[in-house]
């Protein structure tokens, strides 16, 4: 039981990270109708920028942990958001009225560009950082000595996710931008006729998605203590699985799917085999798409002629 509770905590933390990435997939799919294959690599870039900012701040002699965290968060969100904007501008916008598979292929190319760009720019080796946020709480200690740990970093990941989700939900449901986004999702032509700047709204979608992915990258860096240039690929597919599981196009669904994937992966590693944890996640993607193509909270898609 204690083992189970510990895995539950670990799974929720991992799921929060996946959920943050999944929101980027689901938003873009909802509005533009394409799978932003490069989104996993945007997450990786976010992790790298967080790492570099962190290094600079530490070497400048800053010691106040909250200040460092805040600056790293803001810098990595800002620069990664600019990456998201540039990617949309270069690789996706010219293809908006091209044939069906063109944006997908362009996105695959973009994903290769980003992966190898960071490999060339920062080297292929794994970049570790020393444990930055330490300490934690012992929730429960059973008689046989098994301890349920809740570390500070885990608390921070979950809290940050909740706060960001609250801000994000407010943004989508209450602001002018959010209304424009929802309008573009339903009918771009009609939205444009009613005075919504469709290009700008789509750009902003990519910017917000990239900023959330940057936060996920920072969390990943703090939680696992390392980044490498290849981490975006697998994390990206898993986050996409999360978005599909939750029902693509649905924002709460993406978070729910992220948590589900995180939990499934953690429990699979804990009770079955670590080697096959990715196989489990990918199999879920296939099974969900076959039996429940609309996901948990998605709306059925009707194809019209």
């Amino acid at each position, binding site marked *: 039981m204690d083992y189970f509770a510990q895995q539950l905590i670990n799974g929720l933390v991992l799921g929060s990270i996946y959920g943050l990435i999944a929101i980027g997939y689901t938003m873009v799919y909802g509005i533009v109708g*394409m*799978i932003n294959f490069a989104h996993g690599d945007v997450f990786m870039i976010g992790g790298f*920028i967080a790492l*570099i900012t962190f*290094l*600079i701040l530490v*070497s400048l002699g800053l010691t106040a942990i909250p200040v460092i965290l805040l600056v790293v968060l803001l810098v990595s969100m800002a*620069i990664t958001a*600019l*990456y998201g904007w*540039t990617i949309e501008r*270069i*690789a996706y*916008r*010219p*293809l908006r009225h*091209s044939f069906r*598979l*063109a*944006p*997908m*292929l*362009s996105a*695959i*190319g*973009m994903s*290769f*560009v980003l*992966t*190898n*760009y960071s*490999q*060339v720019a*920062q*080297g*292929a*080796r*794994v*970049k*570790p*950082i*020393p444990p930055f946020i330490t300490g934690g709480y012992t929730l429960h200690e059973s008689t046989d000595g098994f301890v349920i740990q809740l570390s500070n970093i885990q608390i921070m990941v979950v809290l940050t996710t909740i706060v960001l989700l609250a801000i994000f939900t407010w943004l989508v449901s209450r602001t002018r931008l959010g209304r424009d986004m929802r309008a573009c999702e339903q009918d771009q032509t009609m939205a444009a006729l009613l005075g919504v700047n469709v*290009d700008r709204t789509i750009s902003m979608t990519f910017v917000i998605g990239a900023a959330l992915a940057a936060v996920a990258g920072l969390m990943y860096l703090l939680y696992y203590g390392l980044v490498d240039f290849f981490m975006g690929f697998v994390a990206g*597919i898993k986050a*996409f699985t999360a978005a*599909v599981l939750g029902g693509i196009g649905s924002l709460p669904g993406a978070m729910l799917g992220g948590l589900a994937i995180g939990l499934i992966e953690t429990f699979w590693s804990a009770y079955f085999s670590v*080697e*096959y944890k*990715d*196989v489990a996640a*990918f*199999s879920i*993607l*296939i099974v969900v*798409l*076959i039996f429940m*193509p609309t996901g948990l909270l998605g709306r059925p*898609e009707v*194809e019209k*002629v």
Partner: protein
Amino acid sequence: MTAPSTNTAKPATGIPALFKTAFINALVALVLFSLMVGIRTEAGSDGQLTYWTRFGELASLVGIVFGGSIVMELLRQWIGPTGTEKLVPPAIRSGMSFVGRYLAPALLIFTLLVPVIFYNQRYILDLAILVLTYVMLGWGLNVVVGLAGLLDLGYVAFYAVGAYSYALLATNFGWSFWVCLPLAGILAAFWGVLLGFPVLRLRGDYLAIVTLAFGEIIRLVIINWQSLTGGPNGVSGIPRPTFFGIPLDNSDDGLAAKLGIEYSSTHRIIFLFYLILALALLTNWVTIRLRRLPIGRAWEALREDEVACRALGINTTTTKLTAFATGAMFGGFAGAFFATRQGFISPESFTFQESALVLAIVVLGGMGSQLGVALAALAMIGGFELFRGLEGYRMLVFGMAMVLIMIWRPRGLIGHRAPTVYLTKAQAISSDLVKEGHG
């Protein structure tokens, strides 16, 4: 490249506007590259991260973006608005069609003569075999992507199934290459059906992700199922192919001894060359024949409009499934050939990059065009050879090329998607035949 396309506003002309755009692009580039390029991190020997600055590289990159966007903008104004049909002089057009008609036979004759011309150049022969392997993979995937219009991102899975089928059957049971080759194809097709049956109901990009996931699953299973596949160490000591039972070696039973000529290691390379050429031509021939059959027509119709297909009574699931299985089978053949050529296979050879490379060949060649795929494979593998040793840079250039091709020539360099069947003359249909309610 970074020049943002102005969709809504009229493109501003004049020198100040030009410099303003370039300046903004350079500023964006400066922010983008500031940390990723300007600072280089590396883990030291004690695990401690160190960093150093590279402001020179950063400055030159920003300068390139600045200059590049000015050049791009000037080029755009010089070429004029895109999307307009250019008038080609009739002389050039007839010349082009002349080249188009004789290019394929000329290429084929040249390919047949390659081992004769480059007999002593082992490097060129090896490269030619590699190119032909990708030509075959491209033609195989062309059935799925180019003809049926199904985006398959996990094609390498079938390549892997073929390679491991031959490797395991040959090393464990000692079966000959010629027995295993059809088996490898059948097994790969079987896996294609197994995967295809449930997932082919999905829409285009969902299908792409599912095939990608399937490819990764196959790779992970190969890595982890150590007792069968040897895990990351791969399978080694795979038997070389024989000339229908006669080994191509220096023994008394070898082909050289039987023919009474002096043995040379080049014989095996040349044999492999003609083997893959035959396999590739088989793929091509089957594809061309299939395109004339009802099933091929159905594939092309499916690519153009799935809903209309269903309305015409075409069973879309079976049609997709046959395309998937046919493509998978050729992937399996190519895999078996790969295993016998290398003598050693490991999961490293079957990554997603490989799938993307084959897909890029098909896309670059203009989906559906057999000649285009062959030329694209030649260009792609040749281009990769130029970047040999620069692993990171070559994939970087590859990714950029994929994006740029999608933007400039989304139909591929040799775009050719002409339907195989079309009405030769316009037919007038009386209006009372098409009136609503009368069929």
